[in-house]
């Protein structure tokens, strides 16, 4: 009975990991017509020595550790506020959540438009506030933050929902007791809400980190990894190596690196769960 799921799992999840590992030990490059030349760890050495790879890794980590806290912080703030069920909170919930139901690719077209120099909304606002003409996607310093901003826009509502769910499960008595003790809202948040929401936070952090390593849709459309690789993230770099430069060996090595990173993240998350979740 397990067979269908198991077979598919083996073929499309387990086997590919090993296949990538195997392939990464060869030089397979269509541009230079190398079919399967044994290379040992040469692909990895090439990667680690490559300034481009180092930049890609730096970009990816900046992106991941930049967007995750922001998305989560924002999501938590929104959830806490919207949980108060004031008049109109349902409308706000819809507003913040709707980006989740549209494809990232359409968010990309929307924001490409928003970031267009001179008539994009963002740029007009910047001019209004005295920042002058800025070419956000065309400037190496601002391109990655611009992508990070639209990613937070897309994802925060999704995480907000998980926090809303988490908040609904919090025991009211604790808060009532805190009120009686004269605790301020901020103190209540810090001492009660935050720790009680830890399981949700952990879950959301994991999902968010994994998502950030999967980021590629908006890069494909908005920047093609540029300018000058400022927005070149790991999965996009992998795609370029495999399908634009036909260097299968290096692409396989990148796959292995990506898988290892994801597994490390998962293991860390697991350890944290064990340590931090046990809570009274």
């Amino acid at each position, binding site marked *: 009975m397990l067979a269908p799921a198991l077979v598919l799992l083996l073929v499309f999840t387990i086997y590919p990991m090993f296949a990538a590992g195997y392939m990464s030990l060869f030089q397979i490059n269509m541009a230079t017509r190398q079919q399967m030349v044994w290379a040992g760890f040469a692909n990895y050495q090439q990667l680690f020595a490559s300034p481009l790879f180092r930049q890609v890794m730096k970009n990816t980590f900046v992106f991941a550790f930049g967007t995750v806290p922001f998305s989560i912080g924002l999501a938590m703030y929104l959830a806490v506020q919207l949980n108060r069920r004031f008049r109109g909170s349902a409308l706000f919930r819809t507003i913040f959540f709707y980006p989740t139901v549209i494809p990232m690719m359409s968010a990309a077209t*929307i924001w490409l438009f928003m970031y267009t120099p001179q008539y994009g909304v963002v740029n007009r606002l910047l001019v209004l506030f005295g920042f002058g003409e800025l070419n956000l996607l065309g400037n190496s310093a601002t391109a990655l933050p611009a992508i990070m901003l639209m990613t937070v826009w897309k994802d925060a509502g999704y995480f907000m929902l998980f926090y809303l769910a988490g908040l609904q499960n919090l025991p009211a008595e604790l808060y009532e007791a805190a009120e009686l003790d004269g605790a301020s809202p901020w103190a209540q948040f810090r001492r009660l809400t935050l720790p009680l929401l830890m399981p949700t936070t952990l879950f959301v952090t994991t999902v968010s980190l*994994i998502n950030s390593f999967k980021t590629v849709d908006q890069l494909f459309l908005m920047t093609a990894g540029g300018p000058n690789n400022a927005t070149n993230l790991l999965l996009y770099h992998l795609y370029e190596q495999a399908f634009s430069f036909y260097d299968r060996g290096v692409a396989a090595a990148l796959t292995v690196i990506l898988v290892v990173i994801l597994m490390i993240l998962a293991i860390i998350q697991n350890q944290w769960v064990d340590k931090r979740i046990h809570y009274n």
Partner: protein
Amino acid sequence: MARRNSISFAALLILTLLGAAWVIPLLWTFATAFRPANQSVAVGALISTDWTLENFARAWSYAPFGQYYLNTTILVVGILAMQLVTTTLAAFVFARMEFPGRNLIFLLFLLQLMVPAEALAVPNYITMRKLGLIDTHLAMMLPYVASAFGTFLLRQTFRQVPRELEEAAVIDGCGPLQTLWHVFIPLARPTLVAYGLVSVSYHWNNFFWPMVVTNTPENRPLTVGLALFAKAVEGGSDWALVTAGTVIVILPLLVLFLVFQRQFISSFMHSGIK
């Protein structure tokens, strides 16, 4: 849980500003899509009252959006149908059966949660090539069918099925499959619906793997079609067209979302509970 039914003015102000930031991109996109093309980038675009449907007509003629819609529909329905089969079977096994190696296999499923299909695009692409499945619907679907996420979700739900019901079914002569069909699945309906909504939503919006594995409009889903459309149109940067194409792609989604809001939201929340 929530105590007050009101929030501070400061908080309301912040929420309003944020809300505006969230909604303006959408509004601007819609506004531009409905404006005549030569007004798309004019300053007054948002408030002008000129409107037209010609951008949509043009966009529709430039790219086979109808075909893309069909492909995406086939894709999400196909994936969901197969997922339902594999995940209910697997969840049942994990919830109720004991056998040697069970923990090991469970671990394998766990691996899939950590390593998404996108990361394995290159080896999976080669596999598809060897199977002769490049540029088929099947190729877009297969890596996602054995959904560990769905399996775990259902397993949790199945574990909560009271033993008595199960035993009653066995007494009535039901084998495992029949028990699954008659007892477990009906009880798990809310979870299945929630999962279905999440799955459809995810795969409707999926881009990378379908892009890697399809070549022709016959199989291209909406997301890939929109990307290629936007890139091609960029040759002249015709924002009226690009926004029209975007609206064509997202309008049904937004409408469905607005109508079925509660179901959407509760499905997503439900699926997150671990």
